[in-house]
Structure formats: C-alpha cells, structure tokens
C-alpha cells in the first residue's frame, strides 16, 4: 500500500437504514456539509484515515432506487457513472432485506464495486429473521458485512473490507439480475440496434435496461445520438412491449427471491412487535391526534420552561457586555451606536434565542429519530390535504415554530418540486420563537390581564390564516395536481444520541450562520439608516421613509413609528421591540411602560397581526430564495405576504374599533 493514497468511497442506501449513523461513525467531525453543485440537495463529505490511507467518503442522497424521477436518485447514479468511486458501501436494513436488495440490483448493473453493509442485524433477529452472511455473499458475489451501527459494531470490518476490495485482494464478481425470460429477446434486439451508440461512461447493459424502464433521461440522451431510422425501430419495439418496465422489475425480484431463499431463515415470528403495538394506537386518528397535540404541548412547555430562563440570562449577559465594551469605544457617537445598539442590540439579541432553539430542535430530533414524526405526518395527512399539501410537510412546519430558516431547508425532504415550493411558500406563516417573543411582550404591556388569552388568540388566528393561505395558494398559485403520498414508516427504535446530536448541530449552525452574517449586516445597516444623516431617527432615512408612507398606516391604525418598527422587524423579528424603544425614546427597558400610552388596543392588535404575517426576517428570505431557486416564486410569495398582512391588519383593526376594544 502506498502511503498517503486517497480512496473515494460512496455511501449509499435507502432511507431508514442507518446510513447517517454509519457516516457519522466513519467520519466523525471531519465532515463537511454543502450542496450538490446547482442542486438543493444536501451533500455530505468526510474523511476517514486508516493505516496511511485516506478515505474520502461521500454520502449519496438516500434513495429507494436509481431512476431519474427524483433529483436525489439522479445525483446518486450520476455520481457512480461519472466519478467512478473506488468502492460503494451500500447500506441495507437486514429486517427488510428484499427492499435493500432492489437498490443493490441497480448498483450492480452500473458495475459499481459494491460492499453490501447489512445493518440492523439485531433488529432483524428480534423480528425472527436470520440471514446467513456467507450464503448471501456467495449468491450475490459481493462482500457482505453484518453491522449494528447503533452499537458501533461492524465499522472496523467495513473499513478493512474497503481496503481489501480496493487493493484487489478480494474478488468482486457480482451476479446480476436479468430481465425476465419472456423479454430477453427484446433486450437483445434493442442491444443489437443501440450497442454501437453507447459510449463510456455508459454501459450497454445498464443503458438498455434503462431504455426498457422508460427512463426519461437516458431515453432523451439516446434519441439525440441514435440514427432516426434506428430510433424509430427502438420506439416501435418499446411500443409493442409496453410492459418492458415490469419485465425489468420482475427480473430484479426473481433475483432477489433467489438471494432471500439462499440466505434468509425465519424463526418463530409470533411475537407482537413493538411497532405493531404502538402503531395500533398512534396511527388511529381518534388517539393519534390527541396524542400528537399532547406531545407538541410537551415539547413547547419543555422548550420554553428550560430555554426562556437561559435566554433571559444570556440577555442580561449581553447587556453587561454592552456596558463593559462601551467605555472602550471612546466618544464617537457612530462607533458606539454601531457596536452597542446595532451589533449587540440587534444581532446579539437574536443570538440569545439559541437556548430556546436548542431545546426545541433537540426535542424534535428525538421524535424524528425514534420514528414518531413519520406517524405524526401520517395522522396529519388528511388535514394537510385541505391546504394542498400532504403529511410530509408537517415536519418542516413543526421546525418553523422554532426558526423558519431550518424549516425552509427542512422542506427538502419533500420529493415533488411543487409540493416543496408550496411548503416553503407557507413556512413564513408559522410563528417562530422570535415572533412569539414579540407577541408575548407587547401583549403583556398592552392587554394586562387578558394578555395570555390575546396571545393565544393571535397564535390560533395565525395558524388559521396559514390554513387559509395554503387553501388559496394551492387553488390559484399552484394548480391542484395529483400529488402521490408514499412514505415509509420506519420501525420505532431506541434514540441514538449521536444521530440526534448531529441533527441538532446541523440545524443550530444553520441558524447561527445566518445570524452571524446576514443579521449582523442588516442590524448595522438598520442602525445606520435610522441615524443618517442627522443622528436622530426623525430626520433619518428610515424615519423619512416611515413618515412618507404614514398615510397607508391610517386604515390599519399604525403611526409612522410603528410602521418603521415593522420595517425593522425584517432584520430579525425581535428587533421590532428595540426599534419601538428607540423610536419612542425610552430604550428597550422602558418599552413596557410607554406602550400603553402610545398604542391603543386596536392598534396593538393590528400591529401584532401584521408582524406575524408580514415579510419574514432577511435570514428566512435568503434561504427561501435559495431553496426556491428562482425569482418568480420568491417574488410572488413576497407580494402575497405583503397583501395578506395588510388586509388582515386592516380587518382586525376595523373590527376592534367596531366592537370598541
């Protein structure tokens, strides 16, 4: 072995096979998370060094097969075709061997040097399934490594197998799935016509199979290179044998059946599985929905019970920090303002919400990891249909209650582009922790005893409007289309702290990165805009803008200062409080005292309603634009929010005046 040699290994597998656990075990903290070039699909890479060999591990997106119907699957197969990794570790779930073998059949067809990592052998045993690794290996013709990733068993064997395979010390002579017998002839006829046109990196057998499957990418590619008369012959053959896709699928399942018959034995399967018992209750709407509400209530009370005291502690620390740095900044009004009010007061306040987010995301990651969130998605599916979505959008929405930024990114779990757009479109209507903080504070200052009821009413109203917005958007903006809902419900299992930790880490850093860059810039910019040129807000650019658009504030009961505070909320929702403090000249501390004297009940309601429905913070806007991938949807969503918030604010204000609030 030459020292310092680099190997490229791809980690592939279907969802729910413990792929990310293995990736974390192999790469530890050396991992880098980015995007696949030009795609909104996450790309994870990391390194694993052993005996002077550096193994670069690329985590391919989880996929059930390698068709061209989803971006994830296309990325995975293009990587194998174009990058030709030294080895492909295909993770499999031992308790659902058939399914994993289906993906293996596709990888083998690509002539990928596969190692079949048979994970969750313990779960399989519990379910009465035993797999003879030796016999499976013999049947498949590729190395099979049994693993229990959740207990860190099998990773060493996996690494040494990678080395053996890449050094050529292990034979790799896979048996391949063939198309079913009745279609072999058509396969050969197609091969006859097309063979001469297939050039590397594409393989003949794979290409023909894909043509038979009706794969849109390959069909398109071939139609451009094949001579028209030959292509017509291909088309005629395919038309005559419409069931070619089924022949390919059947061939795969025959091959799978052989593998299963050779290696798998089932013993007393009578035991009622934990999953069966839990699902019996949790997926029944009568029980499932109340339980879901209870679980969410618990998550929220836990989050705020533990997080808020810490948030307040951080806030006072931030204030002392401001007091501590102030003397060092000299007499410069501008420097002091930018650092203390802009940076610490703006971006700093946002950072104090970290503990709240941490507890929230930890609770959510826990629920995801044990398998509960898939059930929550299942019972919520019927409600989500009303707003043109399906159950899978429920998870991103839930994350939105913490922070909209990871929620928008969380919409990636949705495979259909349209449903992903609609989910992102609606996410800003989910009240995040920052909005809730503003609502709580202002409601407490204005409504006194009824503050709690008012806050709840506002949140409930917000969620109703989310439903309404979804209903409208799915009817008019995103034409109702057929949206297949197919989702695996993974088995319940013990939480894995490592996986949960990684998920929380990923979401928290997404938030910090935004807060540390965009919010910092905008906080400083906002401070400057509200002080240039005169050093006072009245004569500043922001003040002038606010005053010039004051007339539009009439119907919604807002004076120009409140309008400016709303504009400021675009930096970060929490900043609207600081802005009000500055505008009314009382600072953040005096805000509770001054608010009741300057804001009527009706105006306060209108202000809060608009704040909740208004354009989200810049951090959210940036990820929305990025995930929507273009201006069109982004701008329509922007306009939609402006109009909806204005109309709702006006309705609430006029209603409140009418009933004499």
């Amino acid at each position, binding site marked *: 072995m030459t020292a310092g040699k680099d190997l490229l290994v791809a980690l592939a597998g279907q969802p729910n096979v413990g792929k990310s656990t293995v990736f974390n075990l192999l790469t530890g903290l050396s991992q880098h998370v980015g995007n696949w070039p030009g795609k909104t699909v996450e790309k994870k890479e990391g390194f694993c060094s052993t005996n002077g060999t550096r193994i670069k591990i690329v985590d391919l997106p989880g996929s*059930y097969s390698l068709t061209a*119907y989803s971006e994830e699957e296309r990325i995975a197969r293009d990587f194998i075709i174009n990058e030709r990794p030294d080895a492909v570790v295909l993770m499999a779930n031992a308790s659902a061997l*058939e399914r994993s073998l289906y993906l293996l059949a596709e990888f083998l067809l690509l002539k990928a040097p596969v190692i079949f990592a048979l994970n969750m052998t313990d779960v399989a045993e519990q379910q009465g399934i035993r797999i003879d690794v030796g016999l499976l290996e013999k049947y498949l013709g590729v190395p099979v490594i049994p693993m229990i990733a959740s207990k860190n068993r099998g990773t060493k064997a996996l690494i040494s197998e990678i080395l053996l395979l890449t050094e050529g010390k292990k034979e790799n002579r896979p048996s391949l799935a063939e198309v079913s017998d009745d279609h072999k002839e058509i396969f050969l006829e197609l091969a006859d016509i097309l063979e001469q046109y297939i050039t590397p990196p594409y393989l003949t057998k794979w290409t023909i199979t894909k043509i038979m499957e009706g794969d849109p990418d390959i069909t398109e590619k071939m139609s451009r290179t094949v001579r028209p008369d030959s292509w017509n012959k291909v088309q005629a053959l395919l038309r005559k044998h419409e069931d070619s896709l*089924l022949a390919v699928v059947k061939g795969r399942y025959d091959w799978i059946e052989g593998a299963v018959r050779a290696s798998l034995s089932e013993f007393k399967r009578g035991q009622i599985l934990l999953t069966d018992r839990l699902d019996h209750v949790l997926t*029944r709407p009568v029980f499932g929905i109340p339980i879901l509400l209870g679980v969410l209530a618990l998550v929220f009370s836990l989050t705020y019970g533990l997080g808020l005291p810490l948030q307040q502690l951080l806030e006072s620390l931030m204030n002392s920090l401001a007091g501590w740095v102030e003397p060092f900044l000299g007499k410069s009004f501008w420097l002091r303002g930018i650092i203390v009010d802009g940076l610490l007061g703006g971006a700093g306040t946002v950072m104090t919400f970290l503990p709240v987010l941490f507890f929230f995301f930890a609770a959510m990651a826990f629920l995801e990891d044990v398998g509960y969130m898939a059930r929550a998605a299942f019972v919520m599916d019927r409600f989500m249909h009303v707003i043109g979505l399906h159950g899978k959008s429920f998870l991103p929405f839930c994350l939105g209650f913490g922070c909209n930024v990871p929620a928008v990114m969380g919409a990636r779990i949705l495979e259909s582009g349209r449903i992903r757009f609609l989910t992102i479109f609606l996410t800003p209507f989910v009240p995040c922790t920052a909005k809730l903080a503003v609502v709580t504070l202002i409601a407490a200052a204005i409504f006194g005893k009824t503050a709690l009821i008012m806050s709840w009413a506002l949140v409930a109203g917000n969620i109703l409007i989310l439903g309404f917005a979804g209903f409208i958007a799915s009817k008019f903006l995103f034409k109702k289309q057929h949206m297949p809902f*197919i*989702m695996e419900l993974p088995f319940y299992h013990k939480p894995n702290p490592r996986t949960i930790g990684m998920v929380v880490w990923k979401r928290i850093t997404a938030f910090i990165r935004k807060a540390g860059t965009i919010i910092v810039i905008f906080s400083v910019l906002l401070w400057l805009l509200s002080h240039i040129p005169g050093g006072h807000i009245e004569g500043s650019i922001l003040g002038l803008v606010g005053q010039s658009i004051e007339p539009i504030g009439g119907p919604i009961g807002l004076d120009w200062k409140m309008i400016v505070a709303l504009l400021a909320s675009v930096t970060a929702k929490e900043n609207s409080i600081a802005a009000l403090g500055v505008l009314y000249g009382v600072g953040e501390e005096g805000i509770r005292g001054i608010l009741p004297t300057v804001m009527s009940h009706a105006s306060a309601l209108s202000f809060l309603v608009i704040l909740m429905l208004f354009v989200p913070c810049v951090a959210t806007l940036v990820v929305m634009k990025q995930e929507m991938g273009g201006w069109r949807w982004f701008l329509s969503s922007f306009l939609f929010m402006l109009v909806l918030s204005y109309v709702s604010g006006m309705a609430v204000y006029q209603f409140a005046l009418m009933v004499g609030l």
Partner: protein
Amino acid sequence: MGGDLMPLILLKEGQEGIVHMVSGGLGLIGRLASLGITSGMRVKVVRNIGGPLIITTNGTRIAIGRGQAQKILIRRLAAGMVQAEIA
C-alpha cells in the same frame, strides 16, 4: 388461482393480497416497485380508515395515499389460502 381482483383500497384492515398490477405513470410504477409493491408481491393492509393507508410488504411499513392505493390492483387472499398462494 382464485381470489377476487380489486383495488388495494378495498382491502380491509388485516387482509392480505398479491399485487396483480400497478397502473399509472412509469414514475409511480418504478417508485412502488422499489418499495416492494409490484406484480406478484404480497401486501397486507394494516390501517385503512379514511386518509392514507398503511400497508406492510417485505417487513417494510409504507403509508400510501388513497389515490395511489386505487391504482394498485390486487388479488385478495382469503385467510385460509395464504400459505397455498405463497408456495
């Protein structure tokens, strides 16, 4: 052979069947096939009370929308003939 041909959606909870065919686009057929729902495979309905269905196949649980369940044609297995059909 025996057993009635019907869409999956008509199966009651606890009933099993053998997939006869899946109609629909190549995308849907391919997707379902990769999850083990294709001609000749045995599926069992675990939950079917309005809203999406839950079915099990090959040790995998899958939630599937009613629209998709309508497109899966199955041959229902009577309780007694389950073993015979598999063999």
